[in-house]
């Protein structure tokens, strides 16, 4: 049995959230509302200590980089989003931030398209018949799945068959992520149960 008060607090909140399984109740609402308040307060402090202080306040105060006042003002303008009259002023800094998605266009094309196509083409069709078949499966399979997501030609005849083969590969892949998701969800529960049994009650080593 742990003697650390914070472990007891953590155990209380764990049980409070688990109570939601029985039914939505005031204990759960109490824990949820505290979580919302604390996590937003946490965000404010992290933003201040890790971002605004080292990147804005200190450079201006200590090193006199007064040019940084401009981004500082633009950061403040973001908050005018909520005013009825001059809400539009918050568009300016937002527009500046959104502009950086200009870099996203070429990098997405190189990273998630050209490199992928290049890797598919570079698959070595050598070794035993099984390696060759598996390699071909990736090449033909990628094409088949792309055809499945192609909407400008009706899925009839050969194109229909390719799309069907593509949808089978998609189902196998979704099955794999389904199996992984089951493991992920169970792991989250294992983490909490381990906390209750070991760190709190100490009935388990």
């Amino acid at each position, binding site marked *: 049995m742990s003697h650390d008060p914070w472990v007891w607090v953590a155990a209380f909140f764990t049980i409070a959230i688990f109570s939601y*399984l*029985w039914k939505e109740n005031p204990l759960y609402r109490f824990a949820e509302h505290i979580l919302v308040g604390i*996590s937003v307060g*946490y*965000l404010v402090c*992290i*933003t201040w*200590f*890790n*971002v605004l202080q*080292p*990147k804005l306040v*200190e*450079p201006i105060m200590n090193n006199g980089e007064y040019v940084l006042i401009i981004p500082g003002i633009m950061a403040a303008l973001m908050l005018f989003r909520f005013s009825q009259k001059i809400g539009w002023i918050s568009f300016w800094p937002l527009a500046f*931030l959104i502009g*950086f998605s200009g*870099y*996203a266009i070429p*990098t*997405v094309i*190189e*990273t*998630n398209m050209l*490199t*992928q196509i*290049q*890797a598919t083409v570079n698959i070595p069709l050598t070794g035993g018949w099984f390696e060759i078949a598996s390699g071909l499966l*990736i090449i033909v399979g990628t094409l088949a799945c792309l055809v499945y997501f192609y909407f400008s030609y009706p899925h009839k005849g050969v194109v229909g068959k390719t799309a069907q083969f593509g949808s089978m590969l998609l189902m196998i*892949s979704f099955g*794999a*992520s389904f199996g*992984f*998701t*089951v*493991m*992920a969800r*169970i*792991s*989250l*529960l*294992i*983490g*909490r*149960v*381990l906390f209750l*049994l*070991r760190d709190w009650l100490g*009935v*388990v080593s």
Partner: protein
Amino acid sequence: MSNKNKWLDYLLNIDRKVVYVIIFLSVALPFFLNPVVDIQPTKWVSAVYDEMEEAARTNKPIIIGFDYDPSTLAELDPMAKALLRHAFSRNIKVLGLNFIANGTSLAATTMDDVAKEFGKEYGKDYVFFPYLPQYDLVLLNFGDNFRKSYTQEFRGQPLENIPMLSNLQNYDDFHMVIDLSGTKLPTIYIMYGVTRYHFKFVTGCTAVSATEYFPYLQSGQMIGLITGMKGAAEYESLLKTKLNLPTGDGMRGMASQTWGHLVIIIFIVIGNILYYVRRRMNMEIK
């Protein structure tokens, strides 16, 4: 006929709470049994292990991105601890990064705990950088010189006072980059880091998003992948067999993982059998 029908109805519309109790017991009870011992590490986990050994040999530091928050703590924290234990036991210097605001304290605490185990000193053997927004820009500038984005480390000292960082500038000075995350960040690391600077990149991900990283493994943009709590258990078993380091929470949860999975598989099978028996009976009545 009717009582079989009654049983079927009861089972098919069983109250959710009964199912909840079953899954809870199937996860809680195995903790009282002795833990699972041997696990066969998969190809991509062994690749990460070998790459860490290579980092030890070339004596270059590594970067670990702790991009997870409490919601995915159960899968990624055991992984972080296993990787840190491996790095510290081989005297590899570690630089911690973080782009998930809610996970900042988590990462700082984990690094300090494991460093204490190996008597490693903050600033000399490991250092943790603060949270920054606009991670795409930070990752891009990291390839040129990380001092462009970071002026202080997490505890507030300027980077010049950190002995470990003296002759480090960008990705080239690190052997590899490991990103632990359940979010889209590993893909961001590849798009804004690997594509431009071609460093060795490894991902530790939650099992939910594992399947989407395999194209990057096949194309070589990513050289290793650790998947969920099982991946952490595999890495711990490698550390146990090769470096005789104690196993952590990953292995500890494997018994419950086994029972939990078996229960879910049985539920799916039984659920479908009952469903089809019910449908055939409805067919007969009509």
